[in-house]
């Protein structure tokens, strides 16, 4: 048979292409599909707003959970140089703002702060450099003055600090009893502040009006936080240090000597604030019977709830809604005439009723508040802060006031106008640079990523274990408990690298490392990351 000549074999050329894909879709830059783009924008947690010092609570909790304690300490100290102190004595306004409060109970921030603060005691802060030739005088070595000095020092200014007493710390050292704040804690924390450098401490310097005027001339700025210098007394009572004592002075004596000797077993304390309860409880620790007499009802009296509760546990009797109308010194001691009080007005004036009661007591301790040295307040061009300016407030409020003053001073010295970064929120932070200050409400929390869990229970010394000593009452929770509690934090508005955005990005365009980075070459702008972020740190913005 005839045959036609054909090419005998197949060459590569004959089979050139197969329907096989061997390259990647990465040539397809899907970022061009986008109308909106995600942006990483951290926001403000309500607890930070609640904190007078605006501590970035979620952030330090995040570092705690990351087992990066140094970073946690750094974040805490960025706003507050007294974390170990505040972790004990601060009423934690933050907790009352916590988004978890009405969900399953606020995060026990106080104990977390105490935990990190105690760690911080062992970590001195980094030395600050001197960046300016200008000098600032700070008068008063309490929490406000120390905070002001601390932030100024961090800002590169040299500070001369003046303190009347032999030690720095004010009420931290001379006021708050050890069972609430051990002296060593406050002392260490103050030492750490001084570690920053740039602070020249002058102890035993009593500053009066003339001295302030002088400082004003010699320094580029002066901050005065003298605290409250004089006891208030009821009109018909005078402190004689025989039958009638100053609560403040007694507390100081106890802090310095560890004890106080009073003649008499039946002691009455006048006042409903923390000082009244502190002195009452301190004296109770000497085995004496103590009454607290206050104008308010027990519930409305201004002392911290814990204080009141613990005082009653310790056997202190609270005679509330009573006004000391008269006092007679007798052979057996003091005879008090008390009137019933219907209510207490805003200016601390009681509205009395007809009820009259008499009470005998060996000693009366007055703790109804203290006054400031008004004459200094009139000096212009001087910055004021702390209790001296704000009246009796909490430690954290003193810290906040010192911090605010420091920034105001620095703004002034640098010729800038100081303004709070967000007036509405009373929020300022020294170093973080947010473009948008927005507080994350509970509704912004993607609750699907959380489940209900009650806060940890705190262990306290029982009343009979504490009435004969000054040991701390709230025991330190275990690390396990602290971490469990820390995990409850929603981390509102603050990235805690949970990677939810990364997980749900359909386009693999997210990298989470400290913050969230987006690969805009491929991000299609779907917005799932923003929607799913449990804490609202990703915003979708128009992509122009």
């Amino acid at each position, binding site marked *: 048979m005839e045959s036609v000549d054909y090419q005998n074999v197949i060459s590569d050329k004959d089979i050139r292409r197969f329907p096989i894909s*061997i390259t990647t879709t*990465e*040539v397809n830059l*899907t970022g061009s599909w986008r109308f909106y783009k995600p942006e990483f924008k951290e926001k403000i947690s309500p607890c930070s707003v609640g904190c007078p010092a605006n501590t970035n609570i979620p952030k330090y909790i995040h570092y705690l959970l990351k087992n990066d304690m140094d970073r946690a300490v750094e974040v805490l100290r960025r706003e507050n140089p007294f974390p170990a102190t505040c972790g004990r004595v601060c009423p934690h306004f933050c907790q009352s703002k916590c988004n978890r409060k009405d969900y399953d109970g606020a995060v026990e921030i106080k104990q977390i702060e105490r935990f990190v603060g105690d760690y911080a005691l062992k970590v001195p802060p980094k030395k600050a450099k001197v960046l300016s030739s200008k000098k600032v005088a700070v008068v008063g070595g309490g929490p406000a003055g120390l905070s002001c000095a601390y932030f100024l020092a961090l800002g590169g200014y040299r500070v001369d600090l003046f303190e009347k007493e032999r030690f720095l710390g004010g009420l931290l050292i001379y006021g708050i009893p050890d069972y609430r704040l051990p002296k060593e804690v406050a002392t260490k924390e103050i030492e750490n502040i001084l570690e920053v450098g740039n602070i020249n401490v002058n102890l035993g310097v009593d500053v009066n009006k003339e001295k302030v005027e002088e400082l004003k001339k010699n320094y580029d700025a002066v901050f005065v936080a003298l605290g409250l210098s004089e006891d208030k007394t009821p009109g018909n009572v005078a402190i004689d240090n025989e039958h009638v004592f100053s609560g403040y002075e007694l507390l100081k004596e106890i802090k310095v000597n560890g004890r106080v000797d009073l003649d008499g077993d039946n002691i009455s304390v006048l006042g409903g604030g923390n000082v009244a309860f502190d002195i009452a409880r301190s004296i109770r620790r000497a085995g004496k019977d103590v009454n607290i007499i206050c104008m308010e009802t027990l519930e409305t009296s201004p002392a911290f709830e814990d204080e009141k509760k613990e005082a009653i546990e310790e056997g202190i009797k609270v005679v509330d809604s009573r006004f000391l109308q008269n006092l007679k010194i007798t052979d057996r001691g003091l005879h008090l005439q008390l009137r019933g009080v219907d209510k207490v007005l805003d200016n601390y004036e009681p509205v009395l009723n007809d009820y009259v009661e008499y009470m005998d007591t060996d000693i009366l301790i007055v703790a109804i508040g203290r006054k400031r040295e008004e004459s200094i307040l009139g000096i212009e061009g001087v910055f004021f802060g702390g209790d001296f300016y704000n009246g009796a407030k909490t430690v954290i409020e003193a810290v906040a006031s010192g911090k605010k003053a420091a920034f105001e001073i620095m703004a002034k010295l640098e010729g800038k106008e100081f303004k709070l970064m967000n007036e509405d929120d009373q929020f300022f932070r020294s170093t973080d640079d947010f473009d948008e200050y927005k507080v994350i409400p509970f509704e912004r929390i993607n609750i699907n990523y959380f489940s209900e869990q009650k806060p940890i229970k705190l262990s306290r010394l029982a009343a009979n274990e504490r009435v004969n000593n000054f040991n701390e009452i709230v025991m330190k929770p275990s690390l396990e408990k602290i971490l469990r509690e820390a995990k409850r934090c929603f981390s509102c508005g603050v990235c805690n690298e949970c*990677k939810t955005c990364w997980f749900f990005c*359909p386009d693999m365009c997210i990298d989470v490392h400290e913050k969230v980075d987006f690969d805009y070459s491929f991000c299609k702008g779907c917005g799932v990351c923003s929607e799913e972020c449990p804490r609202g740190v990703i915003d979708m913005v128009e992509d122009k």
Partner: protein
Amino acid sequence: MDFREVTNIEYMNQGDFACPGCGAGLSMRHALKVLGDKTLIVMPASCWSIISGVFPTAALQVPLMHVPFATAAAVASGVKNAFRKKGQEDVNVVCWAGDGGTFDIGLQALSGAAERKEDIIYVCYDNEAYMNTGIQRSSATPPGAWTTTTPTGNPLIYEKKDMFNIVVSHNPAYVATATIAYPDDFYQKFEKAKNAKGFRFIHLLSACPPGWRIDSKDSVKTMRLAVESGVFVLMEKEQGKPTKVTYKPDRFVPIKEYLLSQGRYKHLDKDTINKLQIMINEHLASLGLL
């Protein structure tokens, strides 16, 4: 689930052709994270036919073969038998099909493979209509839903086909429903499917922003709402064990909330929504969930 513990290894390339917020793309990404690199995909016509990239590019880093619409489970049977003969029994042969390719045109091949106990994993990503062709009704389209072929809403008598129990009736090794909106559940189920031997079926609810008429950002949220409202029940059945509901919300969200979050249901009146709620309640009651 702690997302920080999820592997960083990706088996998908960027630049895929999924719409923004596509549930199917996201589901594939995570399914592959569980299944790993000893996996290959058999893919019938579906949105993923496009998502996977245009020749000569590929969005997957595992082998993939595209196959005609009706054939996924049969092709996978052939692939698995070939791998067995090659001595590579350990390769996961995965069908990745849409609801059309599973509930409708691919059902026969699926049933055949399930009955033969083929050692494959069949994943149906169910976006409840023919989305790739532009949103036409499938037998996975829920009653009441708008599609371009049910412009006044899918009649209520067309109840969504009960794929879970259809597959269960073949007594396969493992059957589950899942959605990526519940990552824990999703990962556990893929892990179980991976470790089981024999025919395995996972029915994934997968949001389609254009088809469901939702904002792309709400994709995961809507899938979650489907579960929270009881429209999609997360369950599983291992061979020899009873069907188990793997997640039950504390209380079911009213179906209204789910329906009205999506444009495809916006035409529904109160009466219809009530009827749908009754249907869902009956279904949940039959599962012992109400």
